[in-house]
């Protein structure tokens, strides 16, 4: 956090401190407005949005997926999906494709984003969900950002009773998974 503050200069110090306060207040109690939706729809929407951005990446595609209905706050979960896809694009500069797929197991719907990018150094992997932690700060792969995206994304997943996990190998790529409970037939 100190690193982010010094980098962001005094114009944003107060906002960064405020965001920390706000994040601690909302931790575990983000307001959700749930609706039933197929996670595949969310994956497609997120990919569409990333591809229609000015710095579009046409290397991103939703691959064969399984329908998986979840009871979620759609804009918030779309935000998470978009965040994961944007991160994959950001950390795969000029290399490899990015695959997004939806799978399900007996309990969870799983949105998986796989890249063949620069990966996350092993010694930094334990901290990537910390607010204001930037795994690539000070490296040639420092593409900016304040480091709040993954923290917020995980908070949203946790608020839904889900989580975000990842596997990554430096120089090989990363796979991020958002897991969300599958909605019951009765709407629960």
């Amino acid at each position, binding site marked *: 956090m100190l690193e982010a503050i010094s980098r*962001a200069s*005094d*114009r*944003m*110090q*107060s*906002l*960064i401190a*405020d*965001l920390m*306060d*706000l*994040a601690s*207040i*909302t931790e575990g*109690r*983000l*307001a959700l*407005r*749930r*609706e039933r939706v197929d996670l595949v729809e969310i994956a497609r929407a997120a990919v569409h949005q990333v591809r229609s951005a*000015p710095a579009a990446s046409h290397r991103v595609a939703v691959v064969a997926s399984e329908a998986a209905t979840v009871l979620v706050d*759609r*804009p*918030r979960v779309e*935000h998470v999906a978009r965040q994961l896809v944007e991160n994959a694009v950001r950390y795969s500069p000029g290399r490899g494709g990015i695959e997004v797929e939806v799978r399900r197991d007996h309990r969870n719907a799983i949105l998986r984003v796989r890249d063949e990018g620069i990966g996350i150094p092993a010694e930094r992997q334990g901290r990537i969900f910390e607010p204001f932690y930037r795994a690539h700060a000070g490296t040639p792969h420092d593409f*900016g*950002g*304040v480091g*709040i*995206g993954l923290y*917020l994304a995980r908070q949203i997943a946790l608020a839904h009773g889900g989580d975000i996990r990842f596997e990554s190998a430096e120089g090989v790529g990363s796979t991020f998974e958002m897991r969300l409970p599958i909605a019951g037939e009765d709407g629960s």
Partner: protein
Amino acid sequence: VTARPLVLVVEDDSDLRELLGAILSLMDLDVMSAANGLEGLSAIDRRTPALVLLDMRMPVMDGWEFARELDRRGMRPPIVVITAAPDPSEAAADIGAEGWLGKPFDLHELSAIVRRFIGDIHQDAPLH
């Protein structure tokens, strides 16, 4: 499902854009972000925001041109100018904006002005 009020942030500083996006999101608002006026216009083409937070000095298309283009299109959501100019009210008056925030600002100033245009956001929202 009731949709959250939507705020469009048009700001070329990517760090500030990310911070504002996170804060507004934690305030239980929906957020669209744009790095300049042109991106802002294409965001508005997709969805009409309840409020625009607008930086003035930006590459590609600045805040003045963005506001003029909105006027030309006859669609004008409330705009709050965010600026480091010595007299922020002047920049706001320039484009007929409804409010302004002088940089640097804090959460209280931000939430006060957002509340002015969006009203009671959500009773559970941790808005100070």
